[in-house]
């Protein structure tokens, strides 16, 4: 599999090169470089899992090879670039063509994504579609090991011909194959408290995309029509696994096959009156699939009760339609305007499926039968920008934007966003440029659950108070300030500050406020051709405030307040607190700091030295407070390690140019990553005992590492 792209590409290049060489009418020249070297990476003994180190990189000890060849004549060109040859992150790209006549590209881009090395599972059959085990098995030392990792290989190409005319035709095709293991989990029982199980599922995904495009493009106007077809296929759409709680073979659903087709029409008209350009786009896309519906599934007592769906196949069918228009005008030297309209519609034409499992199946939803929910929505957006150049060095831009969104969601069916902004840019001083932007957003949504629930003992009653932050009413203020200065020869400095505050003004339960503050500083000195140093500091503070209600004084299905009167009004946040029912709030703060310094130095004609040092820290906390009168069994202790990380990265790299033909590069890199999080510190592979035990895999649990890498590359240039 790995040799395939090279086996295809190298003969093509040789053929192409031969064709050029055979052309006696054109002086076709090649120049370029070929590099060969090696890399060695060692992790310290305290590194338990080096997956994070290698998350998107292949730093494993071995050969490093790269190639960069450019061939060109008066009319034609052929470029070949390749790096990390034969490694998991190999990249190959070939581009060529004849100027203004045609062009082509072939590429192979491999990507590795490592999450966890040496993860554990009590199951046999890892990599297959059925996982078997004798459970309970709480001795994780006896479990099987697997690497939670996937490799993605994107091979594709394109060909475009215009033959020196405004008309063009283009076709693109690529295939993305993804292989490896990912993690799926899931509650073991029908309700919380019966454990969960991590399971590796096989990733054998293939996506094939093919598109054709034709059009006319000139300075006066353009129009293009594109047809894209994309097919996603998964070799395993179901995963069977031994369920420790129910005691039988359970089933999890994996990503379904699908096909997507999209037709796009793009165009513009330039040189209209008032210096105007009209641009537009229309698209129509359909995504479909056919998924057999599971007519039974493992449940209580190891039985496989009927799910009783009202159809046997789910015929997925989603249509996306969009249209956009934008009119830009520049009627005078001082004024420019843009008005725009965007329309988006998602029609989910998939059938609603109703399941009516029996009352003893353990498969019922809270309202007995289960009816699937799909979302359709349409969004209309209009807006306008007005730019006014007060003088050549002062410019102000006013913006207005309006969005009307309609959806078939149970809590909010309509949302209207009104946004106003003003930006000012000043370049009066040659050595100083400043920018300020203020934006105000008001979002108002139509809430459907103001009368939910018959009374405050009814579980539906709480929905009167829950306003989900993605759609709830909000007032947002955003301020951005930017400054770029060149105070002296070779010196430059910049600053950017951002403050964004969301006030979810009508929210009783849910996120009530969030604030983001960001500060970015950088100072540079020097000439990049000789010596250049850059220092930066990035600081980010984010805070989320939220209010919630703990409701435990309930019984039955659905869970009504019980016993009464002690728990009366348990679903009403205005009810006085007791041990079972009370409000609580959380303040979650995330802090992120990054400081970097880097320098490029050319100490002598043949030498170039690059170095950088990066220090990063993240620090998350949660503070809780509980409604007076509550006396919770587990006191609300603050969390002081919510994704706390520290990372240091040092890079040193030197290049010596022995001659025009030979160049030597060597480098050393040091990285240290430390991770602390309440969800993973003091990690255990199992929680609980007996049939109610949870089985964990170790995924994400041990990402801390310390690593040293050295590498060298000898490059031959011609």
């Amino acid at each position, binding site marked *: 599999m790995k040799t395939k792209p*090279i086996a295809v590409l*190298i003969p093509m290049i040789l053929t192409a090169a031969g064709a050029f060489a055979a052309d006696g009418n054109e002086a076709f*020249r090649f120049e370029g470089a070929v590099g060969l070297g090696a890399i060695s990476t060692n992790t310290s003994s305290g590194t338990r899992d080096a997956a994070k180190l290698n998350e998107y990189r292949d730093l494993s000890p071995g*050969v490093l090879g790269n190639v*960069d060849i450019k061939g060109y004549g*008066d009319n034609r*060109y052929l470029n070949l670039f390749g790096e990390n040859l034969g490694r998991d992150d190999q990249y190959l790209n070939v581009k060529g063509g004849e100027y203004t006549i045609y062009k082509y590209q072939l590429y192979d881009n491999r*990507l590795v*994504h490592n999450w966890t090395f040496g993860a554990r599972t009590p199951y046999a059959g890892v990599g297959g579609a059925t996982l078997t085990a004798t459970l309970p098995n709480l001795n994780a030392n006896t479990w099987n090991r697997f690497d939670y990792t996937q490799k993605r290989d994107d091979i594709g190409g394109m060909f475009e011909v215009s033959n020196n005319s*405004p008309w063009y035709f283009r076709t693109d095709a690529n295939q993305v194959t993804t292989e490896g293991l990912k993690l799926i*989990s*899931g509650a073991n029982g029908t309700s*919380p408290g019966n*454990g*969960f199980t991590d399971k590796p599922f096989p990733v054998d995904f293939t996506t094939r995309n093919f598109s054709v495009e034709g*059009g006319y493009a000139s300075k006066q106007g353009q129009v293009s029509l594109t047809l894209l077809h994309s097919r996603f296929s998964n070799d395993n759409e179901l995963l069977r696994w031994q369920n420790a709680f129910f005691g039988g073979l359970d089933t*999890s659903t994996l990503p*379904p096959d*699908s096909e997507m087709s999209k037709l796009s029409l*793009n165009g513009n008209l330039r040189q209209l009156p008032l210096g105007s350009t009209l*641009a537009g*786009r229309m698209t129509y896309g359909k*995504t479909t699939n056919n*998924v057999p519906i599971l007519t039974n599934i493992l449940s209580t007592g190891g039985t496989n009760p009927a799910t009783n769906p009202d159809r046997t196949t*789910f015929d997925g069918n*989603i249509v996306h339609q969009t249209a956009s228009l934008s009119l830009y005008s520049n009627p005078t030297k001082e004024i420019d305007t843009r008005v725009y309209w965007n329309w988006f519609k998602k029609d989910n034409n998939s059938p609603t499926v109703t399941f009516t499992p029996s009352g003893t*199946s353990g498969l019922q*939803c809270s309202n007995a039968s*289960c009816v699937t*929910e799909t979302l359709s929505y349409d969004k209309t957006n209009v807006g306008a920008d007005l730019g006014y150049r007060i003088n050549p060095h002062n410019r102000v831009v006013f913006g207005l934007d309006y969005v009307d969104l309609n959806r078939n*969601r149970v809590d909010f069916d309509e949302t209207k966003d009104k946004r106003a902004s003003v930006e000012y*840019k000043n370049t009066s001083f040659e050595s100083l440029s400043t920018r300020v932007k203020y934006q105000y957003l008001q979002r108002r949504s139509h809430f459907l659950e103001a009368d939910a629930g018959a009374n405050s003992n009814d579980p539906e009653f709480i929905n009167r108070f829950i306003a*989900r932050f993605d759609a709830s009413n909000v007032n947002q203020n955003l301020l951005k300030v930017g400054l770029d200065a060149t105070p002296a020869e070779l010196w430059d400095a910049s600053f950017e500050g951002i403050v964004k505050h969301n006030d979810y003004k009508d929210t009783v*339960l*849910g996120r009530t406020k969030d604030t983001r503050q960001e500060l*970015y500083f950088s100072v*540079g000195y020097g000439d990049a051709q000789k010596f250049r140093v850059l220092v930066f500091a990035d600081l*980010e503070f984010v805070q*989320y405030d*939220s209010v*919630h*209600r703990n*409701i*435990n004084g309930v019984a039955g299905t659905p*869970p009504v307040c019980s016993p009464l009167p002690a728990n009366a009004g348990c679903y009403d946040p205005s009810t006085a607190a007791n041990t079972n029912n009370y409000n609580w709030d*959380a303040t979650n703060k995330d802090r992120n700091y990054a400081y970097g310094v880097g320098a490029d130095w050319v100490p002598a004609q043949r030498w170039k030295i690059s170095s950088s040092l990066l220090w990063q820290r993240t620090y998350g906390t949660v503070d*809780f407070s509980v409604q007076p009168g509550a006396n919770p069994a*587990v*006191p609300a*202790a603050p969390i*002081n390690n919510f994704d706390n990380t520290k990372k240091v990265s040092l890079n040193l790299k030197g290049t010596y140019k022995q001659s025009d033909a030979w160049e030597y590069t060597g480098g050393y890199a040091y990285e240290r990553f430390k991770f602390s999080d*309440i*969800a*993973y*510190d003091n990690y*255990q592979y199992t*929680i609980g005992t007996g049939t109610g035990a949870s089985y964990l895999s170790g995924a*994400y*649990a041990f990402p801390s590492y310390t690593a040293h890498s050295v590498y060298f590359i000898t490059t031959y240039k*011609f």
Partner: protein
Amino acid sequence: MKTSTSSVAVLSLGAVLIIALAAFTPPAGAADADKGADASPHKDLVLKGDAKCTRCHDETDDYPVLEIAKTTHGKAAKAVSLTCTSCHGESESHINKPEGATERPKPDRVFGKKGARTPADNRAQACLGCHGGDRHLAFWESGRHKKNDVACDNCHVIHQAKNVPLRKDNPTISPLVTTSRQLEYETCTSCHKEIRGQLLKTSHHPIVEGKLKCTSCHNPHGALSPAMVKDESVNQLCTSCHTDKRGPFMQEHPPVEESCLNCHTPHGSSHRQLLVQHPPNLCQDCHDWSRHPGTYYSGNQGFGSTTSGAPNTRLVARACLNCHTNIHGSNAPAMRGKFFLR
């Protein structure tokens, strides 16, 4: 495994070396043409018609003006009739300094990121004169870069020979990457500093590693979509790569269907899987109900805690996702699908 990949690398290099060696000796005509150009300072040096400029601006200039010969523009110059004045203007007063002038006037168009350069619109026009018909620029006027006085030369360098003709003014500051390519993000983040901060975070797309580019998602040359994303909506953009998430699913999670950005932040996060907030808090900001959705999971419920009920399965590991695993959508039946459990 490694033996196999090393062999592939060596074989590839061997093949490539064959091509290189075959092409090593340039055609005699090409070498002669170079010599001819060097013979007289008043003759064209690298582009047809450049003598007008290169009689003064030659290899002794601080800025490598003649290097344009090695760029795509230089190589294509003959085919598309390109020379210095095509971009810089005829610049008569610069070439023939007016009598009495104390300083030589600047060329008609002056490019570069800093200093007293020509206004952005005028600089952009120099490029649009030829590239105005490029369909990649179909929405240039609708994009934010034009609105914010960004011209082509803010990002692109014209005179330097590079695989990617993008400006890079500063040293690279990042963890070790094994790519030798100039990475696009370094150009973009020289202005978009808040994005630089995010790309370096613990959880990120492989942009710093060179496997994705800013232009994988955005069209810096203008787009009709907000944030100049290349697709019509955020979700269509995300699922163009994450095709396993595009469904259709029997059970949808409404905020997922409306925008991936409700839960994820694309440029970088302190939290794994690019989540905007650490679960269970992220989930609890929308979900409240009797028993576990409305219960707090606090600092004494992690692994190793001696508090009753610890460790709590709704806090440790993947928190809510330990049970509600198919949160992007599920095709499982009945309540197993309704609650994204299977």
